[in-house]
């Protein structure tokens, strides 16, 4: 499969990372119970890198990144020697198992959603009638209506308030995210990563952006920066063993450039 094909995938067309992975599985025509995780991970990362996640909703962008991390983790776990119990590709402890379950659940739901949409389109034209006024039916009675129910009124206020405060906070969040996105631009993070790694020679991702000292958007920008730096061949990412975290080092060329610019400043 040509890399070009994956570079052209527009991430905006996918509802979730699972949607994208399922698409990759389909175009590769592979068995979902035996996913070639190395290929899929590489393809997934190619798609991610060729798309600007900044245009996505922050929530969705972070889900795509979490999935990238998940795929890389599964990939490294696959390298561990494990005992084959039988020919079933999903034997116990297969690191792909959870992903496969989530893909199946997602696909099933997507099928069902399509069925629902069909049903809706078949039925959407049928109309109920409004309740008749007794007077119009020639019935001469005084309608004894239910009086207003103060409890139902209170409950309605409660629901309205809850819903509006949700809208309020989600809109507030959007504003804050917009501002934050400015603050943690990927470009700035790329500079920061290079400078900090240069100072320490090598660093772990978790050292660069420790969970205790950085916000989620900051870590996402940082992760994007790392992906971009790998793509530009400015850093080397190593894993000492399959289970360990990513260790980041600078390429020789990058180091030389920094040394040059530092000596220029002096």
């Amino acid at each position, binding site marked *: 499969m040509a890399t070009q094909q994956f570079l052209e995938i527009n991430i905006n067309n996918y509802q979730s990372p699972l949607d994208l992975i399922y698409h990759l599985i389909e175009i590769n025509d592979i068995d979902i119970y035996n996913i070639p995780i190395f290929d899929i991970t590489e393809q997934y990362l190619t798609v991610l890198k060729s798309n600007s996640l900044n245009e996505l909703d922050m929530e969705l962008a972070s889900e795509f990144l979490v999935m990238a991390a998940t795929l890389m983790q599964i990939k490294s776990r696959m390298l561990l020697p494990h005992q084959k119990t039988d020919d079933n590709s999903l034997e116990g402890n297969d690191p792909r198992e959870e992903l496969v379950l989530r893909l199946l659940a997602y696909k099933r739901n997507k099928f069902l959603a399509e069925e629902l949409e069909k049903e809706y389109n078949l039925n959407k034209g049928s*109309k109920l*009638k*409004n*309740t*008749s006024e*007794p007077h*119009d*039916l*020639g*019935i001469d*009675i005084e*309608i*004894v*209506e*239910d*009086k*207003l*129910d*103060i409890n*139902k*009124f*209170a*409950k*309605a*206020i409660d*629901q*309205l*308030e809850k*819903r*509006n*405060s949700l*809208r*309020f906070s989600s*809109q*507030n969040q*959007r*504003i804050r995210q*917009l*501002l934050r996105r400015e603050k943690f631009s990927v470009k700035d993070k790329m500079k920061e990563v290079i400078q900090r790694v240069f100072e320490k020679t090598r660093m772990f991702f978790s050292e660069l952006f420790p969970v205790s000292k950085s916000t989620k958007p900051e870590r996402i920008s940082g992760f994007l920066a790392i992906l971009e730096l790998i793509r530009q061949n400015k850093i080397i990412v190593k894993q000492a063993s399959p289970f360990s975290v990513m260790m980041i080092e600078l390429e020789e060329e990058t180091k030389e450039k920094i040394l040059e610019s530092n000596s220029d400043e002096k």
Partner: protein
Amino acid sequence: MKNDSQAMAVIEAILFAAGDPVSINSLMKITELSEVEIIDLCENLSEKYLNQQDSGLCLRRIEDKYCITTKAEYKEYLARLFRPEHLPGLSNAAYETLAAIAYNQPVTKSQIELIRGVNSDQLVNRLVDRGYVIETGNLDLPGKPAVFSTTEKFLLEFGLSSVDELPTINLLMYDTIENLQDEVNVNE
């Protein structure tokens, strides 16, 4: 339209969904049939209702309009339907609309939509029909939108003497949401 029986079905569906009487003119426009054809079809429908023992409906002509109604002989059963225990009371959505009006009166339909996040025009009309809400004027804005307020009947059934007695609620409403939207627009 394929044939006469389909045309009759269409007329029945239109008159049923409309509820109120529909003019021959409107029926002509909707079905693209002539006046004579409409009148013929309606007469057939009327006869069908009359001849079928198992039909509870009848077609009435009022001047140049037609409507479906129920056969008069079943009045006693229908009278039972209109007892409160059988009629659906106000829905949650209606109570929400009532709350949106009560706390923001006088308020326009589009302001109510902003508060509820969904078009509520039908619900406002229903509340007006039931006498809980009344049109109290027009805003001095393009299109002169009507504004709505709650009625004395509303206060009476809740045992309130004025809307000031409604429990205070923070953050319900229109002011907050509108301000917020302005804020978002400025920031974007």
